[in-house]
Structure formats: structure tokens, C-alpha cells
């Protein structure tokens, strides 16, 4: 069984469409996207309500979770860096984890065949 890797991409919401296209181009089509709030080096911004100032430290962003085995992890990382980098604070982070197992619920398949596209699999 091939090694499976989970990649978390935390970045700005505005990059989502570009990223989806670019990932599809390298063969990654399945993903889970969540709306998140977070902060790193950013200072946040100030909001004012009835004369009271609030420092909002947590800023909205997105988290894209993908699991790959056929597509090389370095290719994914390079693609994400190319799309998401603006040079300004707030570009985000990529986290990479090993995956112990994966299951396709519909068929009950386990292991690397659970995440490989059946069409691609038959080509191998």
C-alpha cells in the first residue's frame, strides 16, 4: 500500500478558487474546506461600537484539507506556495501529516485505493 499523506493548507479566503483550479490541474480533486478564524504574526484590526474600541485579533480565513498518495507531496506544496504567496503577512501555513488508514464509505475499500480515483486506478 502506497503511503498516504494529509496536507492542511491555511490561507486567505480569497485564494480558494485559484487554489481549487491549480490543485485540479495537478490531479487533486477531493478536498474538505472549512471557514476558520486564526492569527499568526498579524496584528488584527480595530472595530468601534458606540465609542468602545475592540481589537479583533482573529481574522477569517480558510482551511483546505486534502489527502494524497499518487500525487507527490512536494508538487502539492509547490503549487500551493505559488498560488497563495503574496509576500505579505497572512499568507498562511501548510501542515503535513502521515495518514494511518483511509476508508471509502460507499464501497468499504480501505487503504490507498480508498482515496485514488477509480478511473485513474484502472489505468495503472
Amino acid at each position, binding site marked *: 500500500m502506497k503511503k498516504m499523506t494529509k496536507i492542511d493548507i491555511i490561507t486567505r479566503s480569497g485564494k480558494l478558487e485559484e487554489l481549487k483550479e491549480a490543485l485540479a490541474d495537478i490531479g487533486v480533486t477531493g478536498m474538505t474546506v472549512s471557514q476558520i478564524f486564526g492569527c499568526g504574526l498579524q496584528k488584527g484590526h480595530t472595530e468601534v461600537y458606540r465609542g*468602545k474600541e475592540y481589537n479583533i485579533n482573529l481574522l477569517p480565513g480558510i482551511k483546505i484539507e486534502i489527502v494524497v498518495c499518487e500525487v507527490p507531496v512536494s508538487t502539492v506544496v509547490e503549487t500551493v506556495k505559488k498560488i497563495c504567496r503574496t509576500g505579505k503577512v497572512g499568507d498562511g501555513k501548510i501542515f503535513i501529516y502521515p495518514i494511518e488508514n483511509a476508508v471509502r464509505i460507499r464501497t468499504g475499500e480501505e487503504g490507498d485505493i480508498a482515496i485514488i480515483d477509480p478511473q485513474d486506478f484502472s489505468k495503472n
Partner: protein
Amino acid sequence: MKKRLTIIMSYVMVLMFSASTVFAEAAEAVDPAKIDTGDTAFVLMSAALVLLMTPGLALFYGGMTRSKNVLNTIMQSFFIIGLVSIQWVLYGYSLSFGPDIQHLIGSFAWWGLHDVGQLPNADYAATIPHLAFMIFQAMFAVITPALITGSFAERMKFPAFAVFVLLWATFVYDPIAHWVWGVDGWMHNLGILDFAGGTVVHISSGISGLVIALMIGKRKGYGSEIMLPHNLPMTVIGASLLWFGWFGFNAGSALSANGLAANAFVVTHIAAAAATVSWVLVEWLYHGKPTILGAASGCVAGLVAITPACGYVSTLPAIAIGLAGGIICFFAVSMLKAKIGYDDALDAFGVHGIGGTWGAIATGLFASKAVNPAGDDGLFFGNPDLIVTQLIGVVTTMVFAAVMTFVLIKLIGVFMQVRSDESDEEIGLDIAEHGERGYSYQDVAAGSLSFATMLQPTEQLATPQWESETAQPRL
């Protein structure tokens, strides 16, 4: 057991109210010469406008709370409409405007609107049916306790709240209304000018709100947690309904479709406009940005300030009253509250209490007999006495309302819990008190993820025009 109890209670209530038909009066002969159709139409429509202010207030407040408490906030105002309307016709109107006892309160002579019919009451409004005057006043009695809810928002138990409103309406609003507007009420006799309710409505509710805020304590997390308005568009809708309805509140208080009503209408609008501008400008100067919450708050502050004055001042003073009202209330809300540290959650005291006080004083400054011969002249028109009279009214109202509110809350606290449990405050009063959510869409737990159906293999989500052909989501 609960079902049976509900059925029995329903039968009892139906019986009680059908029994009241025993007291129905014979049809009165209405003298068409006395009733003015224009006045009557105007007052009835004004009553409807004032009613609209209470749901408007509910939305104004609702948008400023956190989303987990929006329904509780709205429910408090909305339920008051039901509760106080019934109290009003049963005995509230009688206590407020009925035959005078010792200049302090009305009698129960008009309980159940006995003797309040289609003929005019010459003491209050000689050209409209008495019922029209009564129902117009009812809407004032309704909105006043609703204003207080802003102070204890997000942390009061509903049963205690309901009991409090009923008692406050009876023991605070009705007496004060009698003093200021009732025939032979002592403030009325003293010459205190309050055209549409700056004292009766705003000062009383504002100070009561402050007392409750101090007694009930701050919201959990106040000062450390960030608590932002969750729906400012809703607040703006509320403020708009308030502005609109206020024309009924102020102009309608002329009780006649005449020049004085037109004057009240104009100065109301101008004061609101001036206060909107001044609050926005001051906030802009202090915090660098003009905010919609500031604009909405400013407009309400201006409306509050002009309320006692609208039947006695002309347009240019109205601009001054509005400008000052916006600035004064801004500082009350942003600095006074922060300095003293009380949690008047939605600024009932800061806007209504302080705004109403400024309005009462402004009346003492700018009132002119040229605008309303039945009024008086203020300081700037050669009469320094009026401002003293106005201050007597302000101070007495504040002391009375504050003491009574304190007593009522203490009394209620003996019999039931007033402040919400910490855990309820945490979950949110919508769920804890009402078992409802304000916003169920996009909520997994509420089963309303209707837009995210499980796709069949052949189905695909509609893709936006700009997406490439290859980027199709697949499960």
C-alpha cells in the same frame, strides 16, 4: 396533567372575558358636531405609528445583542405589547388619566374602560373620541417598559421580567403619567412641560434601567470577552421604524391635526437629523471612523431629546437640541459607562435617561409661547423659572423611578430568580428561556442544511462561469 391544566385555564379565561359583556354599555348618542374627523384620523394613525415603535425597538435592540440572545431581546419588547395593553385597558388607563386622587394617582373609576367611550373627554382631547385618546396613550405605556429591557439584556430570567414589567407599569409608569399628564396631576399643576413624554417615558425608563443594571450585575465576561452587535442591519431597520413611528409619538401628542402637530413633526425630524450628524462627527473625531451604529444611536438620541420639547420649541432650537443631544449621549455611552463601569448593555440610561434629561432641560431653555400659547417661555425667551420647574420634574422622576425599581426588583427577588443562571447565560437565553434559535440555517444541529444535499454520481453542483471544466467537485 399539563394538557388538562391548559384546557381548564383556557376555558376559565374565555368565561372571564365573555362575562365582561355583562358590563357592556348601551350605544351612546355621538354628537357629530364635537368630533373632528381630521383630528380623530390623525390621532388613530399616530397611535398605530407609536405601536410600530415597540417592534422597531425590539429589532433595534435585537441587532445589538449577540446572536444567541436575539430572540430573548425581541421577545421582551414584543411580549410587553401584549401584557401592558391588557393592563392598560383593565386599570392602567384609569390610574394614569382617571379622576384624580390627591394629585398623585387616578382612581379605578375607569377600570375596564368604564365611561371611556366614543364621546370626547373635554379635559384631555375635546375633538376626538375618548377611546382614541386612550388607545394613543396605551402605546406610550407599552413602549416605556420596553425601553428598560436594553439595560438588563442578555441576563434576566423571563418570568421575573414579566412580573417586573407588570408591576413597573402599575406602580411607576401610571403614577408618573398621572403627575405629568393627568388632570390635576401635581407636576402638571406645577407647570412642568413635557409634550410627548421626555420625563414620563425616557427619564423614568432610563433611570430604572440603570438601577436594574446595577442590581442584576454585569454580563458574564463583560470587559474581557468581546461582545459585538451581531446584526447591525437589523438595528438600522429598528432605528428607522423608531424614527418613522416617532412622528406619531411627538406630532400625535398635539391630539389635533393642526399647526402645533406640524411644528412637532418638523422639530422632531430636524432634531433627529442633527443628532445623527453630531454623533457621527464626534465618533469620527474620537475613533477615526463614522459608524452606522453611531448614526442609528445618534438619531434615537435626538428623538429622545426633542420629545418633551417638540410642542414648545421652533426649528432652529431643535437643531441645537439635536446637535447637543447627539454629543451628550455619545459621551454618556462611551465615556461615562466605561468610567463608572456599569453594564447598561444597550444604553437605555445613556440614550434615554440622559437624552430625556437633556430634553427636559432644553425645554426649559428654548420653550416659547409663540410656538404654543398653552406652554411657557424658557430661559432664552426671558423666563428663568421654567428651567427650575423642569429640573424639579427631572429629579423627582429619577428618584421615584429609581427607588420604586429597586423595591420592585428586591420584592420579586424574594419570590423568584431574577438573574439567569451562568450556564443559561453561556448557552444563550434564546435556547435557555425560549427553546428557540434565532438563526437555524447553516446549522447542522437543527437539520436545516437544505442547500447541501448528498450528490448522486451523475449529479453535479452548478459551477460558476469562471471555473475551468476540469475543476468539478466529486465525492
